[in-house]
């Protein structure tokens, strides 16, 4: 990779980040943030991390941007009272307290930079990394070393990760309890609806290929599940928000989500029962298969499927809980606005 080109991409990255901070309009900032996410995923693929690049593109610049936009439109809907969504703030010159904060931030940056300098920017591979690189294929049967680390060597982290999403989805449905679906919107025009009917099966096919091939190529349950959730978001945007809610009850999604989690934990328990340890793969008797073929990797494809089911259902129900309109927003007086 040409260093000048890389430098240019990094400069662009910093420029989008700064513009996301300085733009006056929130909507523009959100779009700048999305561009930042896409650039970041390009940087990840330059840094030889295809798995991470895919995840970043799908989750951070796709899913999170759409949630940002939903939140933005939710706050724009209520127009009563004063609306400070577009607080226009001139950033120059900085106020004094902002100068202090600026110096704190610069000091923090210097401090963090000082931490890397003694290492001479070179990374130490360490025992663990060497072990993964040399033995992952033999010990787990998966071609994708990152998937082997994520679902086999450090599978326990992934269980925690699932629990984080589960907590968030539960929490957001708590926060939006007592709200209902907005049934007025009928979606976009005929052209868009017909052509999306052609595209959405392809999206779902793509999602399932990412999930099922997680042990062979970059991708896996998280990425595939998020793409599935994106298909569900497309339903909401294109066919109107009541389209999917009328067909798939939220309870079905919650059931799918819980089933995915329990499936994951159950696969882990098999390892515990055979005495090999929680979430054990080859040692627990899962057939490892031939490395590089579709049926290989022991429990990794199964775990990927569980995660894909859980993430897809979870993120889609998260989106649908946020799309709902708040009714009876609050009781009592909010803090006295000066």
């Amino acid at each position, binding site marked *: 990779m040409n260093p000048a080109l890389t430098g240019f991409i990094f400069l662009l990255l910093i420029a989008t980040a700064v513009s996301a901070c300085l733009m006056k309009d929130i909507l523009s900032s959100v779009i700048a943030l999305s561009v930042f996410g896409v650039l970041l995923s390009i940087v990840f693929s330059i840094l030889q991390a295809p798995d991470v690049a895919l995840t970043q593109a799908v989750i951070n610049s796709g899913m999170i941007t759409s949630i940002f936009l939903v939140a933005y439109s939710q706050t724009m809907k209520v127009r009563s009272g004063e609306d400070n969504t577009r607080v226009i703030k001139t950033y120059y010159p900085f106020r004094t307290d902002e100068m202090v904060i600026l110096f704190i931030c610069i000091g923090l940056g210097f401090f963090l930079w000082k931490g890397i300098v003694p290492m001479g920017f070179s990374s130490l591979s360490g025992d663990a990394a060497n072990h993964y690189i040399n033995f992952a294929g033999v010990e787990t049967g998966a071609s994708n070393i990152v998937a082997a680390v994520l679902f086999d060597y450090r599978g326990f982290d992934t269980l925690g990760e699932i629990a984080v999403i589960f907590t968030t989805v539960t929490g957001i449905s708590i926060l939006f309890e007592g709200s209902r679906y907005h049934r007025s919107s009928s979606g*976009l*025009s005929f052209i*868009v609806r017909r*052509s999306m009917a*052609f*595209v959405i099966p392809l999206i779902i096919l793509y999602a399932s290929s990412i999930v099922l091939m997680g042990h062979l190529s970059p991708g896996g349950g998280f990425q595939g599940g998020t793409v599935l959730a994106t298909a569900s978001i497309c339903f909401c945007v294109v066919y109107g928000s009541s389209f999917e809610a009328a067909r798939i009850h939220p309870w079905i999604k919650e059931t799918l989500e819980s089933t995915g989690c329990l499936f994951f934990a159950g696969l882990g328990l098999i390892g515990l029962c055979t005495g090999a340890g929680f979430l054990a793969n080859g040692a627990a008797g899962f057939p490892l298969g031939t490395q590089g073929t579709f049926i290989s990797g022991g429990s990794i494809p199964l775990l990927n499927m569980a995660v894909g089911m859980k993430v897809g259902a979870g993120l889609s129900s998260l989106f649908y809980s946020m799309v709902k309109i708040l009714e009876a927003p609050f009781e009592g007086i909010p803090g006295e606005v000066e």
Partner: protein
Amino acid sequence: MNGPVVRLISFSLMTLGVFFSLASAIGIVRFPDVYTRLHAGTKALTGGALFILFGAALQCGSWQAAAKILLIAGFFLVTNPIATHAIARACYRHGILPEPAHLDHYGKTLKRRDLK
């Protein structure tokens, strides 16, 4: 498959793509209103990205990878016009009119539908 002729064709396709992207970037900055800007922005994908993808498809060694790239190109071809159409329609419904509009068929259609 990496003969000099193929490389030449591929690079010229890519150059064409880069030209389209640059032109659309200039267009987005220079054009006066939403619709003309959309028109310019669409070129970045249908012109720019497609040519660059074709060039890349010529250069990559295996036919599987080329097929993948062509699939991506097909996907672009389907989704990009839809997106632009949706944006333009949303803009119109939001009340943004093209600057020097002489003909307004869509407005008439909408009015007729509302009358029904």
